[in-house]
């Protein structure tokens, strides 16, 4: 790698040119479309290329479809047996490596999060097919655990050898009678990233689980929280706040979720979407099939949390709830403000870069704003153009060849359960009062003019950015963490939170302020040079006392 050079006053165009300079021409052309200099415009944002295939050999941060389906969406549920059909690796690597916490650990409910289950395919299974082994494994899991549901996940070879996992699942489900068995064709090579796996998971959960609950939820203000995975206990903190406001979250997709919570999602009166990328499909389908509107919320950042709570209260429109929400905000804010005031002098004016999966690169800018920190550059691993530019571009999106085979399912209004929660007039009135439905304006408008927005950032670009722009803090994942820190720049993981958290909600904001203060002001960054490196010239001899 080149020696560090500092651009005293970096120009976004210069930086972009320097990022592209080393690439073979074809790669440079492609990357040029995925590196965008932001022009914060009122109603439209410049286009960026996203959700396209990864460049081979570029050292991407991306993972695969299986990771998006099993690891992200289904992994956090406690009482569903997740059975991976494939060689052992995929199951092993998704075993307790995402920090989606559950409180099923503390009660008598089923909790399978601590188990990794696999058919451990061998070469003979590749040659003769693995369906028999899969059926036997499902039977063994059923006999051992008697779960409510067994979910099966395909891995790369499964699609190639033609195992029909859905047929096996259907057969076993009929055989058991008291255990729902369903399958996900989330082979790692599908699509171009984790994103395809989200979509596949959304479709199957919606088809096989949602609406299947027998228990009626009778709470007054019922919502679904979609796209919150309870990393480091984020979901616990959000639930604490909602509870305090008298809002009942009946179904989280999918942090600390259970089979029954998924199954009763159709009973909520509002869906609140946190991570738009991973779960907007379910949000849309809940609306189409059951008449539940959805709004975009964000519980990352104290101000954003307050805003989201007010949105929910506004939707329900009842004074008791609106007052309750205001009271809760008033009660929670002083502690937040105190922590903010404490760190602000030490964080104000510092700069950050954020390159995280498909939503946090946007959400976390709220927290940095609250600390007076400026985001110089941000981007997603696997966001789509709507996550960057806003949902208004969806009609213009073209599905390319690499993602064409991801199933799109058509849902119809349910003949029995469809019930519009709000009349067209009520919705129109709410919109007039500033509540936006089914909308997400994306990352780009949230960022300042002249900032760099980069899709599918790779190792080379990450190092180059740090070298050129010298941020005070770099946020990404475990694979990036230590190379960035070797450069002497503090690095915060925004996937795993570096074993910290929660960072959502009010208490989460306090945790985050303190954590970032700790990180950017740690003494360790001043120890990189030894005293004899600081002053290498011998100007005097040592004088013994």
């Amino acid at each position, binding site marked *: 790698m080149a020696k560090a050079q500092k651009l005293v006053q970096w120009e976004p165009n210069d930086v972009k040119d320097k990022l592209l300079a080393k690439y073979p021409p074809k790669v440079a052309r492609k990357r040029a479309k995925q590196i965008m200099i932001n022009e914060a415009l009122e109603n439209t944002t410049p286009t960026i290329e996203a959700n396209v295939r990864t460049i081979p050999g570029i050292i991407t941060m991306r993972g695969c479809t299986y990771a998006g389906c099993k690891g992200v969406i289904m992994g956090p549920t406690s009482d569903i047996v997740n059975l991976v059909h494939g060689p052992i690796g995929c199951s092993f690597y998704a075993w307790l490596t995402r920090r989606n916490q559950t409180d099923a650990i503390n009660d008598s409910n089923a909790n399978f999060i601590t188990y990794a289950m696999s058919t451990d395919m061998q070469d003979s299974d*590749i040659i003769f097919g693995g369906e028999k082994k899969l059926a036997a494994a499902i039977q063994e899991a059923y006999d051992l655990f008697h779960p409510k549901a067994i979910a099966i996940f395909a891995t*790369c070879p499964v699609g190639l050898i033609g195992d029909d996992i859905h047929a096996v699942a259907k057969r076993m489900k009929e055989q058991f009678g008291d255990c729902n068995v369903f399958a996900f064709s989330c082979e790692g090579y599908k699509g171009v990233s984790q994103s395809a796996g989200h979509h596949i998971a959304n479709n199957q959960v919606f088809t096989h689980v949602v609406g299947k609950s027998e228990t009626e939820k009778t709470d007054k203000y019922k919502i679904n929280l979609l796209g919150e995975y309870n990393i480091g206990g984020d979901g616990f903190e959000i639930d604490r706040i909602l509870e305090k406001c008298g809002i009942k979250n009946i179904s989280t997709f999918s942090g600390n979720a259970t089979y029954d919570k998924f199954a009763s999602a159709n009973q909520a009166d509002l869906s609140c979407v946190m991570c738009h990328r991973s779960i907007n499909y379910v949000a849309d389908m809940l609306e189409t099939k059951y008449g539940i509107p959805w709004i975009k919320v964000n519980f990352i950042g104290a101000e954003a949390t307050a805003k989201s709570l007010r949105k929910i209260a506004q939707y329900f429109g009842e004074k008791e709830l609106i007052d309750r929400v205001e009271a809760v905000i008033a009660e929670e804010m002083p502690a937040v403000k105190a922590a903010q005031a404490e760190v602000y002098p030490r964080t104000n004016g510092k700069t950050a870069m954020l390159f995280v999966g498909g939503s946090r690169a946007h959400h976390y800018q709220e927290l940095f704003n609250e600390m007076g920190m400026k985001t110089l550059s941000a981007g997603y691993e696997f966001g789509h153009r709507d996550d960057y530019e806003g949902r208004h571009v969806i009609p213009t999106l073209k599905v390319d060849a690499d993602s064409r085979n991801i199933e799109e399912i058509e849902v119809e209004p349910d003949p029995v359960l469809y019930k519009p929660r709000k009349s067209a007039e009520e919705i129109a009135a709410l919109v007039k009062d500033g509540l936006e439905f089914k909308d997400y304006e994306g990352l780009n408008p949230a960022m300042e003019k002249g900032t760099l927005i980069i899709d599918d950032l790779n190792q080379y670009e990450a190092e180059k950015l740090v070298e050129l722009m010298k941020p005070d803090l770099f946020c990404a994942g475990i694979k990036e963490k230590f190379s960035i820190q070797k450069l002497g720049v503090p690095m915060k993981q925004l996937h795993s939170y570096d074993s910290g958290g929660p960072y959502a909600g009010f208490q989460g904001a306090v945790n985050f302020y303190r954590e970032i203060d700790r990180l950017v002001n740690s003494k360790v960054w001043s120890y990189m040079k030894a005293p004899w490196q600081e002053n290498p010239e011998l100007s005097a001899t040592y004088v013994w006392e």
Partner: protein
Amino acid sequence: MLLRHTPQEITERKALMINPAKTCQPIGAMYAALGIKGCLPHSHGSQGCCAYHRSTLTRHYKEPISAATSSFTEGASVFGGQANLLQAIDNIFTVYEPEVIAVHTTCLSETIGDDLPQIFDKAIKEKKVPEGKTLIGAPTPSYVGSHVTGFSNMVKAMANLAAPGGKKNGKINIIPGWVEPSDMEEIKKIAAMVGVDINMFPDTSGVLNGPLTGEYKMFPEAGTPVADIKDSGNALGTLALGEWCSADAARLLDTKCKVPCSVLDMPFGLKATDRFVDALRTVAGTSVPDEIMVERGKLVDMISDMHQYFYGKKVALVGDPDQLIAMTEFLVSIDMMPIHIVTGTPGKRLEERIMEITAGMGRPVNVRAKGDMFLLHQWIKNEPVDLLIGNTYCKYIARDEDVPYVRWGFPILDRQGHQHFPTVGYKGGLRLLEQILGVLLDRKDRDDPESKFELVL
């Protein structure tokens, strides 16, 4: 309880693996390749594998792990990944400039039957490989063996770089097997003390335990240079440490370049280290110096000093075959009783070796190759143990069953030290004993009634 669905009653499972005591081949190949100087490992498959393997190694070492991937799409999965790999080779040499690209495969490229040598030929013909740079490759199908197999396959691919017919270099090859960077350093140190000129590959010391200086080098000045690996064909002999990890490469050097080899156990514990030092002394015709005798004596001294705490204690062990064999022998040699032993890696030979080593204990021992941690946990429920040794995943069993626990093996995701402090050799034996004693005596201090709580132990 974290694992409350694990029943005490054992039912044999034929199809379902739960909580594996192994992972898949490519991660082993990736780790091995990082022991070559200036090498970028490359995963020829869909990118999820590479992300997972890098993440696991990174969590284990708290160090950057660079590796590239062919990033298969569905199209490539049907029509073959040649175009992806050719593009990757070009991009890697242009952007990252490694000396070597070490390609391994995944279940995806193996199932479709991509032919690495043919793709390499094409890459060279198309001038995608700059002058003086090296491509090596190993097939590492995830549905065969385990991560250990993948490690072995990549080390074998390294050995395959050696060509016969050169001038003898007077060195001894050491193939250290899947041990930590700290262990590789220790092995080099022992060889230097015995006065043996060695050529060791792979060597991850200095690659995966590097300093923080404000500068990041993707390819640090460490690892075994390709020239040395090629030169291994001219050595006097090869010491392969660990049958599973190192024997294939050593035997290849023997058949291909007529370098005689000897397969030893990994040098964990007193006796295996004795055999390693003895072998070094014999092949090099040197005598063992006093400082090694002193190190050895310290280990024997500690065994004798603390023997009462080891004596008769029951141990459960989980890990990889080569490590398990040496560790079991070490525990038996200090009069502990390893009674439940599991690896996920297939190989009947492991069960035989463990039976031989534990034969003198005069009691039955549970041992299972191709087992899993669910089974190990059930064994522990049926016959509790005083100590559990294994990777980080054991902490769930340790907590549920309240068993003193030493982290050892791969991966260790929640503690530090393995990359800096060896567990091989006499020095490593001292460290292992220190760790074992620490957890046993901490437990005693925790559980003794106050009237029996003692200052001196």
